[in-house]
């Protein structure tokens, strides 16, 4: 007699089929070839034991570590200070223009770090170029979105009646904040802090453009060792040190943030309408925030149309008619390919995560690993691995996109998995009853249901690829440099016309990224709408 299966076992048994095997195969092969192999080659062929001791016993290594740490902590603090008012407003209140305001704050996050660097060069007075203040402000600029999104969504679902109850029972406003709001938001604040910390800790383009050669994070020191000095072994040691530090910091913060107190959980009412008494304040917050976000961008556009002190479109002309245009095409080509590959790989990963219990859980956690590997390290690994005979792919036009999938897929998986889980199981059951094969169900149920999410994911991957700098600065080649690489190279040179070209190219990059953002926004807006149907 057949043993009886539990529901979960039956489900797993049913779904370990050809489709899921293909999905697993695709994901595993891709990451084994383009992530694990390059890192393996770095360690086995380029790392020497003596260098581990040499790098770790050098005082200057620890100065770099210390700088990376304190500048990122300062950046996290600055981000929270700047983001707090607008986050409270967006999270707590419903008002006209709330959605556009949220979208506006997201712009910073999706902008390429090189462009943010260029924007602050354009906006800040010369005396503040090459300063730590510029670096921290730029970091805060593109991370405001993280606080608004992560902490804002938590505030949205916070039940304000708990606070009111506390006030009625005699708690003062600060006490209510400390005992009700903070415990409920602590986790969200912790997650946001981790994300911001990671971005700033591994910052490369911003410190390169705004910090000057004498301020180095671990990430830029990896580049300095590997490319400036040619010390790939030392660079590899630092790359692993960086991963270790990231893991340590993330686990400390996660532990500190703790679990959400369950006795304070409650049903989530939607945000309340803006009360009369805070209108003035709200208007002030909206104005200041919008100005802070828009100003650097406008500065980039302004500078793109100026050569010296004169108005001139020479910069734009050069971008559109000279070899600089090649970089526009290279970026678009790379971004589109990253989008397509990224969606395919993320869909395959999400499929396994959603459908398979054990393996799914493993893959779910494993899919964030590529984020811990810095783009510079990955680029370095790829370039020393695929460099001979038939697998010399250094000049292949798709090589940069391969590296970009490593940054895009983990994010896309985070977007796809919840959406996939939300597919009503009755749709599958109905399709099965009607005799649909597994493949047919995947196409007719899952893909059809998730179309908008895929489009949003495509937009996200395109934005990631358009802005990525670390790997592209190593992998992209003459005549096919991506736009951020070209912008950074132009910014390193002097001359009014060259500056104008840099800012024109940066402006175009802003336009593309905002375009990608609009795709994401409209796709998710449509999805929400469809869900309410």
């Amino acid at each position, binding site marked *: 007699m057949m043993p009886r299966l539990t529901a979960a076992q039956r489900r797993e048994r049913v779904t370990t089929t050809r489709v899921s095997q293909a999905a697993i195969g695709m994901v595993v092969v891709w990451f084994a070839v383009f992530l694990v192999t390059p890192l393996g080659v770095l360690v086995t062929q380029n790392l020497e034991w003596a260098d581990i001791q040499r790098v770790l016993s050098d005082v200057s290594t620890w100065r770099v570590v210390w700088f990376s740490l304190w500048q990122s902590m300062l950046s996290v603090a600055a981000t929270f200070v700047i983001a707090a008012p607008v986050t409270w407003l967006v999270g707590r209140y419903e008002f006209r223009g709330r959605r556009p305001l949220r979208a506006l704050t997201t712009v910073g996050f999706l902008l390429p770090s090189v462009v943010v660097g260029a924007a602050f060069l354009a906006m800040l007075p010369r005396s503040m170029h090459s300063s730590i203040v510029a670096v921290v402000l730029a970091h805060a600029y593109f991370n405001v979105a993280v606080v608004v999104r992560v902490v804002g969504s938590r505030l949205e679902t916070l039940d304000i009646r708990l606070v009111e109850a506390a006030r009625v029972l005699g708690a003062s406003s600060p006490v209510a904040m400390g005992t009700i709001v903070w415990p409920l938001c602590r986790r969200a604040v912790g997650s946001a802090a981790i994300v911001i910390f990671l971005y700033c800790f591994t910052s490369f383009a911003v410190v390169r453009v705004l910090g000057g050669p004498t301020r180095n994070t671990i990430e830029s020191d990896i580049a300095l060792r590997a490319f400036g000095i040619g*010390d790939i072994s030392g660079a590899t040691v630092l790359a692993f040190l960086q991963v270790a530090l990231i893991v340590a910091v993330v686990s400390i913060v996660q532990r500190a943030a703790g679990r959400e107190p369950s006795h304070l959980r409650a049903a989530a009412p939607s945000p309340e309408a803006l009360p009369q008494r805070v209108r003035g304040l709200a208007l002030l917050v909206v104005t200041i925030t919008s100005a802070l976000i828009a100003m650097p961008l406008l500065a980039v556009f302004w500078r793109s149309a100026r050569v010296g002190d004169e108005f001139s479109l020479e910069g734009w002309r050069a971008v559109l008619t000279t070899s600089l245009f090649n970089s526009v095409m290279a970026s678009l080509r790379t971004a589109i390919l990253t989008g397509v590959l990224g969606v395919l790989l993320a869909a395959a990963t999400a499929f396994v995560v959603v459908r398979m219990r054990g393996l799914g859980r493993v893959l779910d956690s494993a899919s964030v690993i590529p984020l811990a590997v810095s783009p510079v390290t990955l680029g370095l690994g790829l370039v020393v691995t695929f460099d*001979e005979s038939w697998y010399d792919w*250094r000049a292949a036009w798709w090589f940069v996109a391969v590296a970009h999938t490593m940054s895009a897929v983990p994010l896309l998986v985070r977007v796809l998995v919840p959406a996939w889980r939300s597919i009503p199981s009755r749709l599958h059951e109905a399709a099965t009853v009607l005799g649909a094969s597994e493949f047919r169900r995947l196409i007719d149920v899952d893909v059809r249901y998730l*179309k908008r999410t895929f489009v949003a994911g495509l937009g996200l991957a395109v934005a990631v690829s358009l802005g990525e700098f670390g790997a592209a600065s190593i992998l992209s080649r003459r*005549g096919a440099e991506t736009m951020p690489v070209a912008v950074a190279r132009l910014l390193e*040179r002097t001359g009014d016309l060259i500056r104008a070209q840099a800012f024109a190219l940066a402006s175009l990059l802003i336009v593309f990224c905002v375009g990608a953002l609009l795709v994401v926004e409209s796709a998710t807006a449509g999805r929400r*709408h469809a869900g309410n*149907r």
Partner: protein
Amino acid sequence: MNNEGLRIRLRRGVTAVIAVAGAVVASTLAACGTSDEPVTLTLLAHDSFTPTEGIFASFTAETGIQVEVVRSGDAGTLVTKAVLSAGNPEGDVLWGVDNTLLSRALDARVFVPYRTVHHDDLDPEAVTLAPANEVTPVDSGDVCINYDKQWFADREIAPPLTLRALTLPTYRDLLVIPNPVSSSPGLAFLLATIADLGDEWQLWWKSMRDNGVLVVESWSDAYYGHFTAASDGDRPIVVSYATSPPAEVIFADPRPSEAPTAAAALTCLRQYEFAGILRGTKHEAEARRLIDFLVSRTFQEDLPLTQFVWPINKTATVPQEFLDYSLRPERPLTISRAAIATNRAEWLEQFSSLMLR
């Protein structure tokens, strides 16, 4: 929402994306061209490679070979890129690897050797730096401390004439240098300090750090971004070339009777630049003819007044005005080829530890 309408719209969207992708790919393929066309060589160079416009016309007329010049950053960046793409190069010929970076490029087997037809006309000292003809010397110059004469005259301060003098409090916050890690004059200057100060070079840099030396990314940023005589910057001392003062005269309108800047002869290190054929080029035969042209009299005589370096071909005539304003140190600081090859990485590492981290 109407499902049919959605499907049509999505299909349209997908068609549009495919169309755009197709167009992008097609344009790339079109750019590759066919093999029947005349050969176009790509000459990779650093940003300071600025020969007279149209100088390659006579070469093209004679050989039928077109030349496209591609500049990508400082010499350091250029060589790094060449090392990473060794065997699968981004161009056919590279101009601008200098004696300070040469060993790095040779270790990575970036070039294929070629003995130029003008070999016997070239400065023998330069030729010995690449004994197997891996690369061909093309020019020489001296990297020295330059200062703004007017700035020092206005303040009645004596300009610094030696490296040791620079550590004095008088010269606090006055010097700007290009980063030795990314810029070849920067590296040449680092080597000059090692040649001049011997074992004390690290101590010297430590005092310079306390004395407010400013390190910037590139030579052009140092000279045209911070040097008082060439920009609105506030640093009257800069690392540049012994031939920078004549450039200040010859480019000025009207021409001053004497140069506004000067080079300190005791701080100079001689730098030789080389050109080489990149291993992996599909046009090796044509690339050889280009190398010959680069060391021919036609091209060599163009160098002094366009790039402010000395020709390497002894038969080339140097313009009188260049000779008038130039300083050619008789006994520049030197460091042996072998010492550079052995210690370059370690010295840069020590410099980075002291100054950049």
